[in-house]
């Protein structure tokens, strides 16, 4: 059973629909029940909205410990805010995260400019190139530089370089995926990234971490 953690923030339908699409025989459950999360074979931790609200909802539903435990002992996929919450702290409201991964979540600067001097907008919204930094089963079948859909104003800054599973540029390089043992987390939205995103989700649905 694949648990998609629901803590009341935003649209989880697209995440569960995309997983059902690539793994039609999987039992996908959108849940806010910690015992279902504990009983799951795999866990997807999505997210949308503001991190302070997300953390509050997570605590309010008693999911805090269950998420930390799942991130330590079973195939676990964080998406967007679901990635950001894994880190120690976010600049968004100076919010402490779950502390599963060492590092901070930072905001894009307000005065970003591209190589031609044109102002770059925040949120970073749209399809950007993802360059894997490590070989990983979740990158299987996905070409380096494949485009994924992003929408975010904050990005992770892992404290340990080896955690970075992929980078993107806006305009400076930033970590857009992190990986460690059974855990994989992405800043972009695989459920909204057409063929490349569906492939990543399919890879996750069959992933057996060593």
């Amino acid at each position: 059973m694949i648990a998609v953690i629901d803590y009341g923030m935003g649209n989880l339908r697209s995440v569960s629909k995309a997983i059902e699409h690539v793994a039609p025989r999987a039992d996908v459950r959108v849940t806010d029940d910690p015992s279902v999360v504990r009983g799951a074979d795999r866990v997807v931790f999505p997210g949308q909205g503001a991190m302070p609200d997300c953390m509050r909802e997570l605590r309010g539903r008693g999911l805090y410990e269950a998420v930390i435990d799942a991130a330590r002992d079973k195939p676990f996929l964080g998406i967007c805010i679901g990635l950001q919450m894994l880190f120690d702290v976010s600049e968004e409201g100076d919010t402490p995260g779950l502390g599963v991964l060492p590092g901070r979540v930072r905001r894009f600067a307000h005065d970003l400019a591209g190589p031609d001097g044109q102002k770059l907008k925040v949120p970073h919204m749209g399809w950007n190139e993802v360059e894997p930094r490590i070989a990983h089963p979740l990158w299987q079948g996905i070409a380096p530089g494949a485009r994924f859909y992003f929408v975010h104003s904050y990005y992770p800054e892992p404290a340990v370089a080896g955690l970075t599973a992929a980078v993107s540029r806006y305009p400076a390089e930033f970590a857009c995926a992190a990986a460690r043992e059974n855990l994989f987390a992405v800043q972009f939205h695989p459920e909204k990234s057409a063929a490349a995103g569906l492939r990543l989700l399919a890879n996750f649905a069959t992933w057996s971490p060593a």
Partner: protein
Amino acid sequence: MPLAKRIIPCLDVTAGRVVKGVNFVGLRDAGDPVEIARRYDDQGADELTFLDITASSDDRDLILHIVEAVAAQVFIPFTVGGGVRSVNDVRRLLNAGADKVSINTAAVQNPQLVADASGRYGAQCIVVAIDAKRVDRNADAKRVAGADTLRWEVFTHGGRKATGIDALEWGRKMQELGAGEILLTSMDRDGTRVGFDLELTRAFSDMLEIPVIASGGVGNLEHLADGVLAGRADAVLAASIFHYGEFTVRQAKEHMAAKGIEVRL
């Protein structure tokens, strides 16, 4: 810059069908929404926008069924707008599977709605649609004085009602209240196929920190490139050139790539 400029086919929906008119009137049937959404996804569309142009509340709930059907079959982001009046409307559309919700008339009637919806669901899913029309009180003076005197006014109710609000000021206010993106439609150009209002697009894009989607007036592929190069739009939206099979989204992207624009091919 590796971030791609987006091409967004727009589907105007009423009574469960996609339609297209000229200057917001004279609607023609263009097909089944789910079928059209799938076709655009196959062609490489970066996002989709559905605008429910049903004038009143009749048939309003039909859009929820369409949203659900699209969400189950199309795995690119899509925005739904038209008739969104409350945070509850936003919630229902997001729960049905929309990724973003576009707010237009209700934002003018109650700007706090934008702040409330953005605060609850995040700026990333709140698009404010602005229908802007040139204020033409003194066309001769404008020609003499140049672009500095250009003004645009916000219209609501599908372009039928003037508000007296300056469009640029309105855009800035919507950004402050928590809009994640502006869908900017030129009322003067919509359906005319003579190209975007590039001065309008440029004025918005240079002013705002959030992305601007140019809309209204696309008649050929050059117009799409113009929207990005001259209008500095982050995304370009078009309807009729795609609906009637004149051009595919892929052709549009190939044309933009040939002009040096970063696109997802």
